[in-house]
């Protein structure tokens, strides 16, 4: 027998080889929901302008007019929730599908594809000279940027699937993902070199930014999440079976080829929408499933919804920090998640090794 899944990282851990009681899982879900509620409330109230809690509640309920809340903060906080959930969910699904705890939602080239799409949109829109005096780069991106980002992400994953000959061989998929990602990054860099403004626009995009999300963007994020969530919730047991190895999963009757395409398709729709709307936000899709696996165990029927909640909590709080740390200025939230997520991930690795 070989250990093929999750080497050393998860072995004995804090759970000391004991089962996860239903009580423990319930507490984790409850804790995540409470954290999310706190994060959302703080997120709407805090920022460049502080708004008292009572006023927040009154405006959300429509008892009071406050455009800062209804036009800016609310869509932004909801976008953080939806993008975080999308990344957590697709991260967990990819970690299960590839049986690799280091898999992240961008593994199959969706981030590079989205960046390329946005760059192309900017290039086609022509010069942007002089548009970058303020910290409002996104205002000057053409409206089509979101669409191009989405198409770029979906297209990249499609090419990866074509190159790897379907989803049958997992290693080929990962390799093709790396190759397509690298080629797209080179193409993107070449396009960016055409003029300096383009560099700035695309750079700001790739850093991840929730500041300019509109209600329309929130709507499409919610739509894709609602469409794909049932798929993921139904596929939990399949991902568990995949943990036994692909051959065993097939011997259990699972139509593996179709299921893999379904998982990749659903995860790609989610990440593509997220990347297209708010840019590339790193580490959320890697850390959320990783941390929750330790808390509630490896059963994907629970891990998938928990990772969605965990991703939402992470990004809502990260966005809150990004807005308040150097207020009234803002940090790009993608920089923050990477700065915080990197060390946290190292800590998880280190703890796993020490206990293992």
């Amino acid at each position, binding site marked *: 027998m070989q250990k093929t899944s999750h080497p050393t990282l998860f072995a004995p851990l804090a759970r000391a*080889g004991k*089962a996860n009681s239903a009580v423990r899982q319930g507490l984790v879900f409850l804790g995540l929901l409470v954290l999310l509620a706190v994060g959302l409330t703080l997120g709407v109230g805090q920022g460049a302008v502080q708004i008292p809690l009572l006023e927040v509640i009154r405006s959300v309920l429509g008892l009071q007019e406050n455009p800062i809340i209804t036009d800016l903060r609310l869509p932004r906080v909801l976008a953080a929730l939806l993008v975080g959930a999308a990344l957590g969910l697709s991260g967990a699904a990819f970690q299960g599908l590839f049986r690799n705890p280091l898999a992240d939602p961008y593994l199959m080239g969706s981030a590079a594809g989205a960046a390329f799409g946005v760059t192309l949109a900017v290039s086609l829109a022509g010069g942007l000279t002089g548009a970058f005096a303020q910290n409002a780069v996104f205002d000057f991106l053409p409206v089509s940027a979101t669409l191009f980002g989405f198409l770029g992400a979906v297209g990249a994953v499609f090419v990866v699937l074509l190159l790897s000959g379907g989803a049958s061989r997992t290693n080929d998929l990962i390799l093709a993902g790396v190759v397509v990602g690298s080629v797209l990054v080179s193409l993107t860099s070449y396009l960016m070199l055409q003029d300096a403004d383009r560099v700035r626009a695309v750079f700001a995009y790739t850093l991840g930014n929730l500041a300019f999300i509109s209600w329309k963007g929130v709507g499409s994020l919610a739509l894709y999440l609602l469409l794909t969530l049932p798929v993921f919730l139904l596929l939990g047991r399949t991902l568990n079976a995949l943990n*036994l190895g692909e051959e*065993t999963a097939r011997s*259990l*009757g699972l139509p593996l080829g179709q299921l893999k395409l379904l998982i990749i398709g659903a995860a790609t729709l989610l990440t593509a929408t997220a990347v297209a709307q708010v840019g590339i936000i790193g580490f959320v899709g890697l850390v959320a499933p990783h941390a929750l696996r330790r808390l509630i165990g*490896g059963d994907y029927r629970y891990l998938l919804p928990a990772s969605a909640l965990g991703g939402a909590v992470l990004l809502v709080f990260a966005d809150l920090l990004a807005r308040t740390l150097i207020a009234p200025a803002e940090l790009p939230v993608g920089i923050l998640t990477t700065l915080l997520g990197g060390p946290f991930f190292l800590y998880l690795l280190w703890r796993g090794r020490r206990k293992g």
Partner: protein
Amino acid sequence: MKSVEQCSGLNPMDLALRPRLSALSLSFSYRNRAVLSDINLELRSGEWLALLGPNGVGKSTLLRLMAGLLKPSTGQVRLGGERLERWSSWMRGQKIAFLPQNGGYPEDLTVEEVVALGRTPHLGLLGRAGKADWEALEWAMQQTQVTEFRHRLLPTLSGGERQRVMLARALAARPQYLLLDEPTNHLDLHHQAEFICLLTGLRAQGIGTLTVLHDPNLARSADRVAFLSAGKLAALGTPREVLNQPLLQSVYGGWVRVHEVEGEPAVLLGG
């Protein structure tokens, strides 16, 4: 060796009605190289059939063909009167359980969770576990004696315990046929003996077991032995018939000696 009917309490008629798993003039080629040619082999209900042969002779390939995981180049595998490909994958999974040699194991699932995955063919994609599923789970864990550590995670078990868990996973589907690829590999003598004893118990339940083995001595208590050599079925019969000096010497070379120990053939390496 008692016959199945004597010790199982199963009605022999029931066994006779079960679909048979058989290979008919089966051939398999990989990249234009013939791996197996013209294999005829039937796995009967309640028998333990050991598949022996030197490394790289196609034992595992034959096992995968019989499990429906590979498609034969020519010939066919039949389950009952029907070609195996024509069974739905779920139905096939209910009748035939397969345990690969290096399947890997989930590191963050408990024994019970892993064994429960064996019910997948009965649940399909959307099914919810019911009474029959819980009963099969308990039965499989009892057969393999893993019930006492049902709540432990797999990495905390010894190799022998883990292998029993994987066997329980295969049994949880309540299959009629069990196909095992070198199940005693990497196990010490004690655990090998324990595992062989377990297989003997399964015969009594009417389960037909096909095991790939590379050590001929482990096949001594099998009902029948099939010996593969150069992609062909070189011999098929009782262990006593198959494990003979001329055959083993022609395949493994002149150092192999077959002696009689306690009335059964034992294969040794001579000088």
